[in-house]
Each structure stands twice: as C-alpha cells, then as structure tokens.
C-alpha cells in the first residue's frame, strides 16, 4: 500500500452514523451487566484459545500420557510385583487420580504465569481492556473463567486416555473433574500476584523448579505421603495439590466419602479466593494507580 500523501482518500466516515444503535449513539449508553462484561472479555480469550490451542497439545496432553505410561505402567509393574499395589489397588489405578490433579496443577500454573506477564508487562493488553468499560475484577474474572475451562478440558482429556489404559474404574471418577478445576484455580489465582509484581519472568523458572516440581513429586500423587519423612507430611497438608489428590482418589476409587472432604474442599477454595483477592489488589496497584 502506498503511504504517499497525495493518495489519501477524501471520504472518511467515523462521525456519528448510528443514531439508533444503543451503544454507538451520543449521550449516555446502556451499561453492560457484569455477566455481559465478563462474557465479552471471555470471548476475547476464546479467540486466543482457538489460535494457540494446537501449540500446547504436547505439554497439555502428551506429557501427562507419557507420565502415565512410564509411572503407571512401567514403575507400576515393579510396584505390583513387589507389594501387590498400593492401598489394595493396582498401582495404575492408584496413580491415575494423582496424575489428573498434577495435570490440573500444571495447566493452571502454565496459564497463570507467562501469559499473565504478557498481558500485564509485554503487550499490556489488560491496559487496553481497562480503557473500555471494564474494571480490574472483570478483566481477571474473565481470564480465570478461561483458565478453569482450560484445566477442565485438559483433565478431562487425560481421564479419557487413562480410561483407555484401564486406569479408570468407576463413574464416580467424573467427580474428580470439578476437583481438578479447583486445584488448577488454587494454583492459578495466587500466581497472578507474581505476574503483577515481578520485575521480569526469570522468577517463573524458580517457581517451577522450586515449587511446582517438588509439589508434583511430594504431594501424594505418586505414593502415599506416609512414605515421606514425618516432618515433610505437614508440608504436604499445606499444599493444594495434596487436598486435590485426596479428593480425586476418593472419587476414582468410588469408595466412601473421605471424612475430611469439607476440609479438602475448603483449603482449595481458600487458596483460590485468597489468591483472587490479592491478585485483584496487585493488578490494580500495577495498572490503575
């Protein structure tokens, strides 16, 4: 296209041309209700999701399945041979709910780290959203809705594959899906605080290395935390992943409702809500100061 001054067209239209249309006409405009506000922002994330979905297939879907094959089948065969399984079930059955929750955690964390820093620091698209009739809470709620959706489909897809491997025994397992979403959110909302406050993204390498990987390995996903040294067990109790694994395993085994189910749910909800509260504050400090 030519940027020559002489080629500028004369007809330029953007002045008021929509006298009847509610949100384009002069004067006060019909406000958006909060469902509508979050909805239009989610629609944007949906556009991004469709665009980036295929790029995340390996880390989202393939890696959990590889873990399932290696740990569930490979190491599982050693476990079953030597101790006849764990808690009375074959190791594959034991480890699948753990891996569902690990997947939920990883997706929640993945979506709440670099992408968030992108919206706040790199392309700063959150700022663009705040120039339209939206508040920080709307912007974050919409992003959280999308993360919850991401966690749900990743955990769901993993469960389908696990079922094909013979790792799912009961329809009650479906109850693990809402738990997985809670686990994903319990990790995601607190990480928004990091995205709003951190100077650069090198902090995330440390988060993955020093927080996420140890949590995956020591929160009862692969073996009962009773096998840990006694001082490490209270640490596991404090982590959202362990509570999710406990609930998920109960759902998968279709056994009795765990005594402490309300505590488990409460811890996950508390992480999510406290994280949400602090992240709204942190993003507000950063973007609307």
């Amino acid at each position: 296209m030519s940027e020559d001054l002489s080629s500028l067209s004369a007809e330029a239209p953007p002045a008021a041309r929509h006298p009847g249309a509610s949100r384009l006409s002069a004067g006060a405009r019909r406000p958006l209700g909060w469902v509508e506000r979050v909805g239009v922002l989610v629609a944007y994330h949906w556009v991004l999701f469709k665009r980036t979905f295929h790029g995340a297939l390996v880390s989202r879907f393939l890696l959990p399945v590889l873990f399932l094959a290696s740990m569930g089948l490979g190491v599982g065969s050693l476990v079953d041979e030597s101790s006849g399984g764990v808690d009375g079930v074959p190791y594959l059955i034991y480890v699948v709910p753990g891996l569902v929750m690990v997947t939920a955690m990883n997706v929640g964390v993945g979506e709440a780290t670099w992408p968030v820093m992108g919206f706040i620091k790199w392309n700063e698209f959150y700022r663009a959203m705040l120039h339209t009739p939206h508040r920080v809470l709307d912007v974050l709620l919409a992003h959280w809705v999308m993360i919850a959706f991401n966690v749900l489909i990743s955990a769901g897809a993993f469960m389908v594959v696990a079922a094909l491997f013979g790792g799912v025994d009961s329809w009650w397992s479906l109850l693990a899906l809402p738990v997985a979403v809670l686990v994903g959110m319990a990790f995601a909302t607190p990480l928004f605080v990091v995205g709003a406050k951190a100077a650069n993204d090198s902090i995330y390498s440390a988060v993955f290395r020093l927080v996420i990987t140890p949590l995956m390995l020591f929160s009862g996903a692969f073996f009962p935390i009773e096998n840990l040294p006694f001082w490490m067990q209270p640490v596991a109790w404090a982590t959202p992943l362990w509570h999710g694994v406990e609930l998920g395993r109960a759902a998968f085994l279709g056994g009795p409702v765990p005594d402490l189910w309300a505590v488990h749910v409460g811890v996950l909800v508390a992480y999510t809500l406290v994280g949400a509260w602090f992240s709204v504050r942190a993003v507000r400090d950063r973007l609307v100061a």
Partner: protein
Amino acid sequence: MAPDLLLTARNLTKKFGDFTAVDGIDVEVRKGEAFGFLGPNGAGKSSTMRMVGAVSPVTSGELRIFGLDPETHAQQIKARLGNCPQKDLLDEELSVEENLWVYGRFFGLSKAEVRERATELLEFAQLTERRADKVEHLSGGMKRRLVIARSLINNPELLLLDEPTTGLDPQARHILWDRLFRLKRQGVTLIITTHYMDEAEQLCDRLVVMDKGAIAAEGSPKDLIARYSTREVVEVRFDADDHGAFADSLSGIGERMEVLPDRILLYADDGDAATAAIADRGIDTLSTLVRRSTLEDVFLHLTGRTLID
C-alpha cells in the same frame, strides 16, 4: 455545568507517594474543539490523560467528564470515550481487523455493529489492504493508525490522544496528522498531549503549556505566540564552544535574548532589521537565521528550557 463542556478540571492533582505529577490544574474542554497539553516529558501530561481516561484515580481536586465523576461513573465515561494511549497496546498475535473486532466487543457492541464499524474504520485508517495481516508485521505508523481506528470503534464523543506521533518518522507523522485533521473537521472533540510544538500548532485550537505538573499558560497557538514571543526570531551561531561569551556584544538588538548552549536567540518583530544590526556592529557570526516564532519559543520564554532536550 454548561452542556457543551465535555471536560472540567478544578485544582486537579495527582500524586504518586511524595511525587506530585499533576499539581492543581484547571482545564475546560468544549465540544468540537481540539485541545492540547504541550510540555516536555515528565510535565504531567500522561498522568492527566490517565485520570481523564478514568483509569487512574484522582488524588484531589474535581474532575468531570461528560459531567460525570470518574470515581463513581468510570464505566459510563469509558463507554463514551476513545482512548489512544502512548503505547500501542495491540495484540500483535491477532490480525488487524481482529484487533478492531475484539476491542469493539469489549464495549458490548454486537458482532454486526463491530464488523460494520471495523470496515469503515479500516478505510479511514488506510489499512483495508492490510486487514488480514498480523499486527506484528505492520510498520510503526500503521500500528498508530490502527490504534486510532480502534479508539474510534465505539463512536466516542471525546477522543484522547497521548503523544500520538512520538517515535514515528516524518512521513508517517504527516499521514497521521491528516487523519486527525479529518476527525476534527467531522466535529470529534480531541484532547492531545504532545511535546512537539509543530504538532500542537497544526492540530490544536486551544492548548495549555504544562511544566512540572502545572499549567504555565493557556490560549490558542496564535494567542500564545503573540503574548509570549515576538513575530520573528533570529538564531545566531558562533564558531565557539561558549555562546554565553557573545551575549554582551549582541545586547540591545531585538526585544529579548535567550542564550542556549549552541546558539543565541534574538526576539524581534523585524528579523531582517536585527540581522542588519548585527552586521553593523561588525560581529563575526557563523550563521544567522531569521524565522517565525513558534510555541517552542513560548515554552522557552515561560520556563527557560527547551521542549526536547
């Protein structure tokens, strides 16, 4: 408040901790005018714009946009504003038209409305041929035009432009000014911040000169020049490192003198006469240049500093 006042600020103040970015300014902007904030970087222009854009809370003083208080009616204000921030804030992964669509949807416009407006605005921004391209492949000037098109998607009654041409090459600036001029002719109210005096002179009907968070003067570009400068200026350069040493030899020529590190400015209504006076005194200059006074001279007179340093 009079119905044609879109913006009123009384003693508007913005503080970040101990630092006062905007120090009690009074401003009124009427419907249909192009209003400018002229000042160097750090004068408080962007802080003012962010308060007017209802994205930054007012520390003290009173601010009304469309007669509404941004503290309580931010959503209603933003629904009627167009905001063209200093940074592009585009989603570079999306195409040109997708950027317009998603932004339009943020205002709650229907898909049909958004598509119709996007088509018109792409034409206006001369981006129709690039509509399907990813934003990351556009030039800086094209991105700016896209940001302006985007800020018009909700048919705003007031358009905020924060440093619209900073960082663009001269040709891209001229194309952008032409687009803004068209908007102005169509009666869109504009508020522009800039540290370019030529931009302020070309686009603004009325402006305030801002320095260190406060307003130093207010008026039309013509008024301000008439009030704070002479008709013409003679720029005198010497073959020397210290121009201050020549100030005495030039004193008395013209009405007023400003000594800058690399030149001396002589303010006079008749520049040629002043040049002749220099020659009469037998002073050996490297060059003398007669030009018209600009807003740069106004700023220099008011603050003793140049706009761009």
